[in-house]
């Protein structure tokens, strides 16, 4: 203990040996502070937290510099869920003694865990919100908020008390008692808790008595009541010594309970395991079935593709092969060659035979020898055939039979592609027949192929007309 005047260490004397100041009263004040600190410590050790708070506050009123008392007060506040108050006491304590102070550890413990501090702040805010709901008659909402608060900070005495009060208001005495019991476990000496508990227990007693009274009313019918000395004997009517019967009955009940347990506990698990095994087997079979089904589908698809391909090939083969099994086109060409060899001058016969060859099919034959012979014959008889078709087409055109003219002139153009007259008249036939697109195509061919000729000039004129129209 140090002198308040000079700071010297005080002795057992009632004055300061350094400055001579009277320290008798000062010492008594310090002793009183220490006494209350000790009392607070004792109360805190038996979980009388409210009593500890009162004593420690008293101690600090005598001596604000009693750092131990202040630290303990902070700790007690913290235990009661009043974290901010506890933190405040530790901060003051640290300011009073900056070194070798356990408050430093407490503050660090909170500051090093910001999420914990945030949670604490949330609980405080929720508590304040719940209090607001209470004042606005939103008791259900307040209960919800307080439950949340207590889930985050289970030691918050005030929240427990407020929740108990709300339960009491709703006459849910059992729930209120549970909350108050929790309070008592945290803080044994809280007078508010005790007061509420007294009220709740009284109400529970009233309820219990009401139930008991109802049972008592039934008593006289079932029992015989008589006095034996100082004792009142209550004996049920018709009570006989039937211990052997009750033993048998108990065994019977035991057996029934055993069977029931087997039915309700063992059998379902067995059934469940058997069911799960069956389901696993079913799943495996189902998977196999799926796999096989997919394989079958795949094979069916392949078979369909092969069938289609087969059909297509057959069709192609039929196109190529005639009735006697020889290739039609080759046969036609051989026939034409045969006619040519008999009489090379008879162009009419050659042309008739040549015309029987399908030009489109002949064009698709890949054989080089075939193509050489075919082209040679085409050069030989093509202009002659083209000329005959051209004349027929021109005749039909003059007779305004444009469909027939188009057919003949198209064939003539196929046999002699270098003849500008044929192409020009074909274009005219198309134009007269109203086939504008075909006419434009034919005129364009004339203009392109026979550029600089009179035909090309006329074709260009018609082309412009058609394009404008």
């Amino acid at each position: 203990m140090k002198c308040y005047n000079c700071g010297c260490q005080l002795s057992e004397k009632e004055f300061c040996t350094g400055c001579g100041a009277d320290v008798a009263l000062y010492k008594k004040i310090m002793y009183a502070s220490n006494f209350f600190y000790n009392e607070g410590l004792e109360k805190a050790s038996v979980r009388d937290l409210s009593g500890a708070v009162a004593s420690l506050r008293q101690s600090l009123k005598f001596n604000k510099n009693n750092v131990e008392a202040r630290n303990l007060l902070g700790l007690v506040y913290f235990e009661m869920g009043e974290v901010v108050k506890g933190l405040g006491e530790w901060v003051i304590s640290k300011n009073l003694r900056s070194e070798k102070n356990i408050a430093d550890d407490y503050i660090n413990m909170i500051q090093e865990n910001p999420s914990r501090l945030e949670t604490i702040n949330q609980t405080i805010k929720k508590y304040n919100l719940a209090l607001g709901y209470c004042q606005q008659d939103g008791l259900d909402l307040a209960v919800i908020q307080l439950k949340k608060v207590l889930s985050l900070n289970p030691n918050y005495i005030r929240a427990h008390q407020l929740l108990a009060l709300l339960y009491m208001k709703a006459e849910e005495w059992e729930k209120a008692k549970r909350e108050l019991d929790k309070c008592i476990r945290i803080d044994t000496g809280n007078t508010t808790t005790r007061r509420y508990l007294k009220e709740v227990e009284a109400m529970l007693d009233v309820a219990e008595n009401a139930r008991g009274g109802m049972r008592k009313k039934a008593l006289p019918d079932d029992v015989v009541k008589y006095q034996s000395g100082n004792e009142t004997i209550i004996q049920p009517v018709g009570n006989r010594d039937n211990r052997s019967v009750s033993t048998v009955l108990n065994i019977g009940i035991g057996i029934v309970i055993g069977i029931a347990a087997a039915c309700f506990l063992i059998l379902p698990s067995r059934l469940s395991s058997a069911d799960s095994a069956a389901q696993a087997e079913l799943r495996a079979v189902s998977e196999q079935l799926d796999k096989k089904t997919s394989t079958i589908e795949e094979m069916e698809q392949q078979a369909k593709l092969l069938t289609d391909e087969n059909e297509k090939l057959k069709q192609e083969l039929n196109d190529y092969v005639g009735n006697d099994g020889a290739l039609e086109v080759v046969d036609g060409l051989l026939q034409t060659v045969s006619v040519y060899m008999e009489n090379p001058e008879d162009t009419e016969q050659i042309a008739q035979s040549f015309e029987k060859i399908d030009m489109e099919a002949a064009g698709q034959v890949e054989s080089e020898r075939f193509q050489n012979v075919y082209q040679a014959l085409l050069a030989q008889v093509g202009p002659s055939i083209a000329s005959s078709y051209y004349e027929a087409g021109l005749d039909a055109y003059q007779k305004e039979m444009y469909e027939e003219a188009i057919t003949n002139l198209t064939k003539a153009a196929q046999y002699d592609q270098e003849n500008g007259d044929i192409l020009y008249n074909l274009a005219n036939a198309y134009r007269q027949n109203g086939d504008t697109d075909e006419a434009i195509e034919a005129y364009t061919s004339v203009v392109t192929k026979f550029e600089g000729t009179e035909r090309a000039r006329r074709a260009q004129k018609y082309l412009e007309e058609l394009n404008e129209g």
Partner: protein
Amino acid sequence: MINFEEELKKFHPSLEVEDAEDAIYNQDLTDVADMLVGMMKEAEKEDQRRLE
């Protein structure tokens, strides 16, 4: 019999963490020892005045 409304008035909002600093600064830390020291100093001054 507990009166709910009256009991509710005894509950006050808790101090939030943000308000802790102000609460610490505004806390009255005067103790009995301070008052004693003040009184003794006053008494000393009074004695000196009388002697003068």
